[in-house]
């Protein structure tokens, strides 16, 4: 799930080297904190949060197969 989020974030940013994800795993949920370069914050959020929503939807789909709830937090 971590790798998937990294893949998605790297696909949309200008500075893929600054993308990294930290994971806080609970029993029933998993929190993924996405860090990107400050200039790329707009790129991962998008107009009206469209890109952030797309990223969350895909990550959640992958969480389903692990039987967990995934929460993606975007941090600059």
């Amino acid at each position, binding site marked *: 799930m971590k*790798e*998937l989020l990294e*893949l*998605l974030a790297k*696909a*949309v940013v200008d500075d893929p080297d600054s993308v990294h994800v930290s994971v806080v795993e609970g029993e029933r949920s998993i929190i993924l904190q996405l860090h990107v370069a400050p200039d790329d914050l707009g790129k991962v959020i998008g107009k009206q949060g*469209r*890109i952030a*929503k*797309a*990223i969350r*939807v*895909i990550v959640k*789909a*992958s969480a*389903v*197969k692990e039987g967990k709830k995934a929460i993606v937090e975007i941090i600059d």
Partner: protein
Amino acid sequence: MDTVVEREGNTVEEAVEAALLELGVDREKAKIEVLEEKGKSFFGRKNSGKAKVRVSITGGGADRAVSLVREIVSYLDIDGQVELSEDDDVVRIDISGSNLGLLIGKRGETLSAVQTIANIALKKAGINKKLIVDAENYRERRAENVKEKAIQAAERAVRTGRAVLLNPMNSYDRRMAHLALQDNSKVYTVSEGEDPGRQVKIIPRG
């Protein structure tokens, strides 16, 4: 990701190699222009003794969007084939396989999300074409389904003399509903509410 780079080298070949490496594409997917060649002068300019080339990614840039989709599919543990077809205006990425439900998602939500991300990758590769990501013809089947529901709802609206609201749908599906009823003289349609809860309302005339 850059789509055009300029590189210098001791020979043209060396400069091209360096540029291709930087772009991360194969030679057949790149356009190569020689700007300066060793021992030749261009436009009367003095030659630095180095070769200089400009290399840009051509049509093959769609491969980046395809490999991205392929990776997403494998992260979702889906055993599927991902294929590209391209014409002058549209790039289509079709996914086929079994158990694509997870990839499609509720009302195609996940499929649309994959399309959104792949579209950005495509535009970054310098391709300004419309991108469609589809799985087992889901989009067509969905469009048919929406049209059918709209027609049934219109019959109900006419029969009862009351407006009928369809379930909330995304803009593409709403458009399908409006189109299905645009020639129906007994009803007219409007959209109301805010996304993601925006709905098509079918109102009987007269």
